[in-house]
C-alpha cells in the first residue's frame, strides 16, 4: 500500500506549495490563461455563492484505502478526525438550514468513531437527501463494518460510491490490490437489501473518475457501459453514474508531475473549458466543512487550505446572510470543474 503525501513528507503535502504550482509555470508565463481571466471573458468573475443547497461535511481524512488519485490525501495514516463537539455544532446548522442535501464524506467517513451517532442525529433533521460517500471496501474491511448496509438502510441514507472501472485491472491500479473484488461483494450486499434496484427508494449511485491523465467521457455513455458490464458479469444494479474529472491537486497533482503529464493535463482542461458549466459549478450552492469545523467553498478548496471569503469562517459562526453572495475563492484547479460537461460531486453540470 502506498503512503499518503503527509506520511511521505512530500513537498506537496503542503497546500501552499500546491497553490504555488497551480499559479506559476504555464499560468505565469501566459501560455495558459488564469481561471480568473478565463471566466472574466464571459463576465462571470467574481463567482458568487447562491443560496445554500448542499452542506458537505468531511468527518475526517482517515481511510482504509490509499488511492493514487485521492484529492484528500487520505489513508490509514491520517489522524484528522471530526470530534463529537464539532459534529454537534454541525447539527445545529443542519437543523436550521434550508439545504436539501447533506453530504458526508472523508476519508472513509465510517471510520470516525462517532459516525453512527452523527448519522443517527442528523437523520432526525429530515433533510431530503442524506448522502454518505462510502468507498465500498470499508463494508468488507472488518467485521464491525459488515452491518453498515443495514445501518444505512435504517436511516434511509443515499449511498454514493467510487468505481473507476468495471474491470478489475483498471480499478485495482487506481485504488489498490483487491479493491475491485471487495467492492463487487459490497455492491452485491447492498443490492441484496434493496439498494440500487430500479424504482427502489434506497439510492445507490456510483462515481467514476478516470484512472489516469485524461478527462472523463460522456456521462450517459459511461453509465450505459457500467450498467451493462456490472449486470452481465456480476448481476449488480445501481441507479446513476456520476462522471467526475480529477482535479489537479494533492495526490493526483503528485501523479501528474511525476508522470510528466501535468502540463498536457492542464492544457486539456483549459482546452475543454466550457463557459456554460461555470454558472453551475458546485461551490455556487455548496458549503464544505472540514474535520475541524472550518468552512470552505468546496472540498477541493478545503484540501488547498483556501478558506471561505467571509466573516463566518467556522461552523460555529455559521450565518446564512454572511455566507450567501460571498465571492468564491478560485485558482487554476477550478478548470477541473468547467471542462467539457463540467464536473461536481453530483457529476456533470452542463
Amino acid at each position, binding site marked *: 500500500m502506498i503512503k499518503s503525501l503527509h506520511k511521505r513528507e512530500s513537498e506537496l503535502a503542503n497546500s501552499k506549495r500546491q497553490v504555488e504550482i497551480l499559479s506559476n509555470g504555464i499560468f505565469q508565463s501566459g501560455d495558459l490563461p488564469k481561471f480568473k481571466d478565463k471566466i472574466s471573458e464571459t463576465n462571470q468573475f467574481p463567482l458568487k455563492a447562491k443560496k445554500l443547497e448542499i452542506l458537505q461535511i468531511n468527518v475526517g481524512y482517515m481511510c482504509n484505502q490509499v488511492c493514487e488519485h485521492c484529492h484528500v490525501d487520505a489513508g490509514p495514516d491520517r489522524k484528522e478526525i471530526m470530534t463529537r463537539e464539532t459534529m454537534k455544532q454541525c447539527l445545529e446548522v443542519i437543523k436550521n438550514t434550508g439545504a436539501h442535501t447533506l453530504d458526508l464524506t472523508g476519508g472513509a467517513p465510517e471510520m470516525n468513531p462517532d459516525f453512527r451517532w452523527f448519522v443517527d442525529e442528523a437523520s432526525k433533521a429530515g433533510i431530503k437527501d442524506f448522502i454518505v460517500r462510502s468507498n465500498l471496501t470499508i463494508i468488507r474491511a472488518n467485521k464491525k463494518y459488515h452491518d453498515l448496509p443495514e445501518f444505512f438502510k435504517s436511516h434511509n441514507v443515499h449511498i454514493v460510491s467510487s468505481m473507476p*472501472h*468495471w*474491470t478489475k*485491472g*483498471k480499478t485495482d491500479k487506481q485504488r489498490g490490490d483487491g479493491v475491485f473484488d471487495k467492492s463487487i461483494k459490497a455492491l452485491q450486499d447492498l443490492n441484496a437489501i434493496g439498494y440500487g434496484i430500479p424504482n427502489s427508494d434506497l439510492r445507490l449511485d456510483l462515481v*467514476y473518475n*478516470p484512472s*489516469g491523465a*485524461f*478527462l*472523463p*467521457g*460522456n456521462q450517459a*455513455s*459511461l453509465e450505459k*457501459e*457500467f450498467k451493462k458490464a456490472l449486470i452481465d458479469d456480476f448481476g449488480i444494479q445501481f441507479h446513476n453514474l456520476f462522471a467526475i474529472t480529477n482535479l489537479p491537486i494533492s495526490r493526483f497533482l503528485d501523479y501528474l508531475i511525476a508522470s510528466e503529464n501535468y502540463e498536457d493535463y492542464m492544457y486539456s482542461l483549459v*482546452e475543454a473549458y466550457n463557459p456554460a458549466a461555470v454558472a453551475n459549478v458546485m461551490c455556487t450552492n455548496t458549503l464544505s466543512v472540514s474535520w475541524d469545523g472550518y468552512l470552505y467553498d468546496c472540498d477541493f478548496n478545503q484540501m488547498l487550505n483556501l478558506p471561505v471569503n467571509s466573516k463566518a469562517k467556522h461552523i460555529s459562526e455559521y450565518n446564512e446572510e454572511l455566507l450567501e453572495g460571498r465571492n468564491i475563492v478560485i485558482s487554476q484547479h477550478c478548470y477541473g470543474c468547467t471542462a467539457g460537461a463540467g464536473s461536481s460531486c453530483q457529476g456533470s453540470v452542463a
Partner: protein
Amino acid sequence: MQKTYYDPADLKKFGKISDWNEELGAKFFDYYNSVFKEGNLSEREKSLIALAVAHTIQCPYCIDAYTGDGLQRGITKEEMMEALHVAAAIRGGASLVHGVQMMNKVNKLEM
C-alpha cells in the same frame, strides 16, 4: 528550422485546414462528425475501428487522438490491443494473400 515532420501540437490545429478552403473544410468536418455519431454501430465500436485504421495507415495524429478517445470511453488497453491485432492480421494477410499471385506466376513460368 523545424526538426521533425510531425509536431503533436499540430493535431489541435486540424480545424485550421478550413482557413484555406472554407466550403470543403466545413463539408469534411460535418461529414466526419456525422460518421462518428451513434448509428447501427455504437460510438465505442467506431472508436475502436478508428484506432485500428489509424494504425493501419500509421497516422500519429490519429493514433494519439483515438487512444485518448478510447480511454475517455473506458475502453481497456486489452481491447485496444485486440483491435490492433485485427488491423495487423488484415494488413499481414493482405501481403500474404498476394502470394497466390506469385505462386500463379511461378507455376505458369516454371517448367
